[in-house]
């Protein structure tokens, strides 16, 4: 099995009861609470806390931590003066969220950032219509770097699907999987997704389907819809003991190529050896060229997880099956693309998409929900 990123699976969980009555407690939002739990449970290995300035600058300029380990997305804690309540470097504060999560943080550094530079480097744009840029511009003014310790886990939805890296590593080993390919998703599966997954699975021992659960854009499919749709697909169309469905609680940044590397690193920590990268991975609108997320992997010979690149699959009427442009010579009216927009529109109108686009069972599962989309 592949080693965790940086060589060691980070464990910053020291569960204990803590009396917060007289403590310096900072209430953090859901995204930061997820970051804290992901750091503590090793999903973000080798990070042990929120980035200090030297690591941030290195991530922005070189796409690596200061110690040369590949890392592309800044994991930052932003607070304002009031929230910091006079705490200074060297102090310990508590970070808490309304879901019950409590952690301790040793403040190593308090600094400010050039938000424009962060946006430009991470997202490749400063256009505020980009959701990641907008998030960056809305960050509070003080950035707090330092190690965290998770004292109490927060209550999370769908926790029956939530596995941490130390658990998936035991699971893969128990299943006898030496090579595991990870599939990142934020949508219910259509036929194209299924073929990508099955094509990749053909060459390895197991498939790790790992939908992202967390804050999404308005109009995205709801998390419960995605999970139920995948359960249906796996039950009906996947060999038992070849596919595992488990969630990853983290928000989308829509950082395209940089986020593709981040997604791969997280799956390496879960114990995966391969990572599927499709068209416009983690993209939004037309901000990134369709295969920019493929290109960026060339910069990381030391990533430690193998990218498996796919171009778009489509249904070809002449070939009579699902193919891709590498293996099928037909184009134009001969092919039917798996348009997410078209499928979404049909489902919104209560229609079952054609079986060439989506499995009937999957479509019916989705249509069984009163609310399919994030509002």
């Amino acid at each position, binding site marked *: *099995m*592949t*080693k*965790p990123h940086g*060589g*060691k*699976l980070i*464990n910053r969980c020291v569960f204990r009861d803590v009396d917060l009555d007289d403590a310096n407690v900072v209430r953090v939002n859901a995204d930061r609470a997820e970051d804290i739990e992901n750091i503590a449970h*090793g999903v973000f*290995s080798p990070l042990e806390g929120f980035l200090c300035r*030297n690591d941030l*600058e*290195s991530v922005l*300029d070189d796409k690596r931590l200061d110690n*040369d380990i590949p890392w592309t997305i800044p994991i930052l804690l932003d607070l304002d003066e009031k929230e910091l309540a006079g705490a200074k470097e060297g102090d310990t504060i508590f970070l808490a969220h309304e879901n019950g999560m409590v952690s301790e943080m040793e403040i190593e550094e308090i600094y400010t950032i050039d938000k424009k530079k962060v946006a430009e480097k991470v997202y490749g744009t400063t256009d505020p219509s980009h959701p990641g840029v907008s998030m960056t511009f809305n960050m509070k003014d003080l950035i707090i770097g330092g190690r965290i310790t998770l004292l109490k886990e927060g209550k999370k939805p769908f926790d*029956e699907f939530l*596995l941490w890296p*130390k*658990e998936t*590593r*035991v*699971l893969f080993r*128990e*299943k006898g999987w030496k090579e595991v390919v990870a599939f990142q998703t934020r949508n219910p599966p259509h036929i194209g997704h299924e073929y990508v997954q099955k094509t990749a699975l053909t060459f390895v021992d197991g498939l790790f389907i790992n939908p992202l659960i967390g804050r999404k854009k308005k109009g995205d499919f709801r998390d419960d819809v995605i999970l139920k749709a995948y359960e249906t697909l796996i039950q009906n169309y996947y060999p038992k003991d070849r596919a*595992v469905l488990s969630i990853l609680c983290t928000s989308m940044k829509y950082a395209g190529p940089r986020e593709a590397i981040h997604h791969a690193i997280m799956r390496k920590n879960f114990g995966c050896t391969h990572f599927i990268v499709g068209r416009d991975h983690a993209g939004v609108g037309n901000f990134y060229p369709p295969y920019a997320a493929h290109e960026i992997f*060339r910069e990381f*010979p*030391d*990533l*430690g997880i193998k990218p498996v690149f796919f171009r778009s699959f489509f249904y070809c009427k002449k070939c009579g099956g699902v193919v891709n442009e590498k293996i099928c010579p037909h184009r134009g009216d001969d092919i039917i693309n798996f348009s997410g927009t078209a499928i979404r529109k049909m489902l919104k109108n209560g229609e079952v998409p054609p079986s060439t686009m989506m499995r009937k069972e999957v479509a019916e599962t989705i249509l069984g929900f009163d609310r399919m989309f994030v509002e």
Partner: protein
Amino acid sequence: MSEKNEKKFTTISIPTALAEKIKKKIEGTGFHSLSSYVTYVLRELLASMEEEGAGEALTKEEEEKIKERLRALGYLD
């Protein structure tokens, strides 16, 4: 930034003839300099020497607890 760059790079020596061969080899590739190529190759080499492993030793109790949860959730029989 300049201070950062100063401490982030070091100089190593390689035979001039080898350097010339590499310079010719990387012409027209995506590598902008001898240094970027050598950095790439060394990172690749180091990564290939990385051994497999869990990266963490679980105690017998921890492992059993994990397996219990995996069974309870239906991930393991």
